[in-house]
């Protein structure tokens, strides 16, 4: 009687409903965990009143959000303004469709009820192409709000995502050479087959991916689109109530997706030295790995100050992208000549160390003296050599 459950489509609908429910719950509790962890790191308490250790805080927040007023500004382009958050959410959720959450129930045998929704054979291309649509949600939302802060925030976001997406993709390509497949399940199986995690062969690729991934989801220290001091809240300025929380949802789910890709590509996904053969345990292993990355995101937010905008662009194009190209070339050479994997690992580590030394030297740079003309005489001051002062043209005020 329950035969219909084994049709792929029915199983797919049920599985995607479960995954979406799990993602939304994860989002809700990520907000709580983030607030608690950041509070702990800053020597505060964080929300701890609603339920034991603040467990019901997300529920309270959700109910509050539902009953809140949703303002549509008079200047907004109404239709686009309403649809934009939904674009963000749909894109964030459907990127997760190809992520393998666990091993198949019987090791080595596939069935329709495996914990992956659709094992598309171009898995990572699916994720990259879908998640590059995320910029539409943000840009349309910011543009349609009819507010200059929103517009500037969304355009910044577009520039940032565009700049870091290339570095992100190229950083992943080294792993693909070792795996020899684009399917996410295939990549995990390749790591089991080789007996290593790809982070050992691709340390440089991993760090590049992590940095680019943080920038791609607009998290601190790359959260310029939402920089409060400069842009109020960037593209979120005009949004309120449930639509605002939909944007937040999209942001956190993107974070989870980036963490999942990092775990799958570089840390063996759901595999852990043979333990994944026990049914169900593979899911727990995967969740732990993702949780470690999510904690890293929170930790970075509490630790690092926001990067300046021109440095952000320069960093992406002048450091991340060339390094990603170098990484791809090294990996290609190692794979093509059938050298062992640790050669690319050592080369990657060497490059990381060299770059850190180089950057360190730039931090210890000297100072230069500039003379600035001011009203009533000029003034000389010492500034770091990398800083260039903007030149303003004279404007004749009528």
């Amino acid at each position: 009687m329950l035969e219909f459950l084994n049709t792929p489509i029915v199983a797919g609908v049920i599985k995607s409903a479960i995954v979406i429910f799990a993602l939304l719950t994860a989002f809700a509790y990520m907000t709580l965990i983030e607030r608690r962890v950041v509070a702990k790191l800053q020597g505060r308490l964080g929300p701890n009143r609603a339920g034991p250790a603040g467990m019901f805080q997300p529920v309270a927040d959700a109910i509050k959000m539902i009953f809140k007023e949703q303002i549509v500004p008079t200047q907004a382009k109404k239709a686009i303004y309403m649809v934009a958050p939904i674009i963000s959410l749909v894109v964030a959720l459907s990127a997760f469709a190809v992520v393998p959450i666990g091993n198949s129930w019987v090791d080595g045998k596939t069935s329709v009820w495996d914990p992956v929704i659709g094992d598309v054979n171009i898995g990572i291309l699916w994720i990259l192409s879908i998640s590059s649509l995320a910029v539409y949600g943000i840009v349309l939302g910011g543009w349609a709000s009819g507010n200059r802060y929103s517009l500037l925030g969304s355009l910044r976001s577009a520039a940032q995502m565009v700049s870091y997406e290339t570095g992100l993709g190229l950083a992943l390509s080294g792993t693909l050479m070792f795996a020899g497949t684009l399917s996410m399940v295939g990549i995990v199986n390749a790591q089991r087959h080789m007996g290593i995690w790809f982070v050992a062969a691709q340390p440089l690729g991993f760090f590049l991916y992590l940095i680019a991934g943080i920038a791609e989801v607009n998290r601190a220290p790359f959260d310029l689109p939402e920089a409060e001091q400069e842009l109020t809240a960037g593209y979120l300025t005009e949004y309120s109530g449930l639509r605002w929380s939909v944007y937040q949802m999209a942001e956190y789910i993107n974070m989870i997706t980036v963490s999942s890709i990092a775990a799958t590509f570089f840390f063996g996904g759901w595999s852990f030295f043979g333990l994944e053969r026990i049914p169900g345990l593979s899911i727990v292993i995967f969740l732990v790995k993702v949780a470690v990355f999510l904690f890293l995101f929170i930790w970075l937010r509490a630790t690092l100050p926001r990067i300046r905008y021109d440095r952000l662009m320069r960093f992406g194009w002048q450091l991340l992208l060339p390094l990603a190209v170098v990484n791809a070339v090294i990996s290609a050479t190692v794979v093509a000549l059938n050298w062992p994997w640790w050669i690319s690992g050592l080369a990657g580590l060497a490059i990381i160390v060299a770059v850190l030394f180089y950057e360190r030297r730039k931090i210890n740079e000297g100072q230069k003296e500039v003379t600035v003309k001011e009203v009533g005489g000029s003034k000389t001051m010492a500034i770091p050599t990398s800083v260039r002062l903007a030149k303003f043209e004279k404007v004749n005020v009528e």
Partner: protein
Amino acid sequence: MTDNVPVEYALAAVMLMVAIGLGLLTLALGRVFGPARRPQQKNPPPEHGGRTGHKTWVQFRLRYAVLALLFVSFDMEMVFMFPWAVVFKRDGLIAFFDMFVFVAILAAAIFFAWKEGAFDWEY
């Protein structure tokens, strides 16, 4: 994993449909439970100290127009590189060196743009 490729795509598309359904649900929830009537003076955007009527969609200088162009070329490059990364081991050294030529041209492009100052902030 089923061996049927179209089915896998359909399954991934199912996730997309469910996600769209969820998005519409949130819009509906807000409409049902949110306050229906709202005072008009809340509508203008909160900037310029409450003055309204200014234009948002003005012409201004976008400082990364060149970067946008570069992005298009690099994104295309990525799309070419991914399938190549999967199969080049099977196709031997010829394919390997082919890609080297491609990457060399690309690297030349990066350094040219760098020299021209495309990556620096336009003052």
